[in-house]
C-alpha cells in the first residue's frame, strides 16, 4: 500500500553488465562512484577506472519499489509474500555507452 504522507521519489540507475565488489566481503558499504551532471544535464558517472556518459530518461511507465514486509521472519517465497510500496521511480539515468577507461599515470596524492 502507499503511504498517506506521499511516497518518496527515487531514481533508477541503469548500467550495462554486472556490479561486483572490488574487495571481498560483499557490496554493502562499498563505494560505487561519483555521479556528476554536465551543465547541459548529461549524467557522467565515474566508476573505478571508467567514465560513463548517460542520459536522463523520464519513464513512460514508472516503477514502484516493493519491499518485503516482515523481512527476517520466515516468509513464503515469491509473489505470495507481503510487500509494501516504499517509493516511486519516475526517472532513470541510463548509461548505455561503453565505459571509457581512465588512463592514469601516477595517481595524484591528495
Amino acid at each position: 500500500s502507499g503511504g498517506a504522507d506521499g511516497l518518496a521519489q527515487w531514481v533508477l540507475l541503469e548500467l550495462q553488465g554486472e556490479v561486483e565488489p572490488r574487495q571481498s566481503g560483499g557490496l554493502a558499504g562499498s563505494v560505487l562512484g561519483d555521479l556528476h551532471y554536465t551543465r547541459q544535464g548529461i549524467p557522467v558517472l565515474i566508476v573505478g577506472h571508467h567514465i560513463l556518459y548517460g542520459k536522463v530518461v523520464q519513464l513512460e511507465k514508472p516503477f514502484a519499489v516493493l519491499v518485503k514486509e516482515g523481512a527476517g521472519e520466515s516468509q513464503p517465497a515469491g509473489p505470495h509474500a507481503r510487500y509494501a510500496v516504499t517509493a516511486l521511480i519516475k526517472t532513470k539515468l541510463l548509461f548505455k555507452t561503453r565505459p571509457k577507461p581512465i588512463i592514469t599515470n601516477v595517481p595524484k596524492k591528495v
Partner: protein
Amino acid sequence: AMRSRAEVDATLQTAKLNPAELLPTVHCLSFGPQAGAGECCLLQLEPGLCAELEAGRSLVIRGEKDEQAVLCSKDKTYDMKIADTSNMLLFIPGCKTPEQLNDNQASCNIIHSQIAGFSNNYWELRRCRPKLKKLRKLLMEDPYEGPDSQKDQTLTFSKYTTEDLLSLIQASEEEILHQLQVIDACKVEGYWRILEFDYEMKLLNHVTQLIESESWSLSKVPLCTCLEELGSLEPTEMIEHILLSYGRKYIDDGEVYFEMHEDKICRAIAQMLLQNAVKFNLSEFQEVWQQSVPEGMTARLDQLKGLALVDKSSRPETIFLLKVDNLPEDNQDRFNSLFSIREKWTEEDITPYIQDLCAEKQTVGALLTKYARSSTQNGVRVYNSRRPIS
C-alpha cells in the same frame, strides 16, 4: 569514511574532466547496508496505477500457492510476469536530477547517496480478466436453501464473508462486488450466499402467483404488499432479494415498486424445465415453457443464450441445457470443451459461450480467429477446432 570534496576533485582531475563544464553538485554513490539483501524489487506500473499509489490507495497481490499471482487495484486486475533485462538496475533514494539541482542553487555540493538495492529484473503487469469463476464455485459449496432447510446449520466452514472473498479471489474489490451482484448473491447473517435453485424458484413462484392473484401490472409490483402477503411464508429479506434479482426497483409517489424482468423470469423457468432431462423435443419444450411462464409474458428462444442450445440438425429438433457458467474459464480449455460438445458452430450459436472471454477491446471475431478454424457449410460460415479433439 565518506568521500571528501578534495577526493572528488582529484578524481575529476585524473579523469581529465573540466569542473567548469559540470554542475557544482556531485553525488557520491555507495551501496547501503541492505543493498545486497534482495529485499527490494521493482514493479512496472501500468497507466493509472502510479496515480492510485500517490493518492494513498493500495495495490494487492493475490494468489494461492497453486495460482499465478495477480495484482489488484481498487477496480482492475493484472497478470504479473517477471521481465529480465541484461542491464543492472540500481535504485537510489535521494538522488537528484539536473532540473532539481538547478532549481536549488543554494544546495550543498556533495550529496552522499546510498544505493538501496539493485536488480536485473522487474515485475511487468498486463491487464487481465478478473478470475471470478472461483467466486461462484465457492458460493456453490453451500447454496442457501432457506430457513427451513434440513441441512446441518452448524457446518459453517463453507461460508464466506466479503473479507474472505477478497483474500481468496484473484480480482479487485470492485470486480468482486460487481460479480456478486451479477450472480444474485445475497448476504445471510453476514455471509455471502447463492440461493439453491429450487429455493430460488420457490420464492419466484410465490411472487409470480401473487402478481397473478392481485392482477398487478408486471411493471408495477409493490414491495410493501409483497412483504405483507408473503412474509408469513418466507423471510422478508428473501422476498425482497428475489424481487431485486428479478426486477428493477423504482420509487413512485414515495412507494417502492418493481418492474419485473420478463426475459430473466422466462429464462429461469426454462432452466427449471430443462434441468430434468438430457434433452427435449424443441416444439414440445416451447409449448410447455410458454404455459409455465406468468400470464402476459412471452417465452422466446433468444432469452436462452448461454443457457441452452438448440440442435437444428436432429429430427425432430431438440434443445438441451448448456450453461456457460459450467464451462472452463481458460480460453483454450473453453474452446476445447465447446468443440467436444459440437464439432462445428455458427458464430451466432457460439457467441454467447465465448463472449465473456473477450478482454478489454477484444471482439468475438478476434477470439474465433485465434482459437478456431472457419469453413463454409451449405453457404453458412462455421467454426471448428484448430486441433483434433479426442
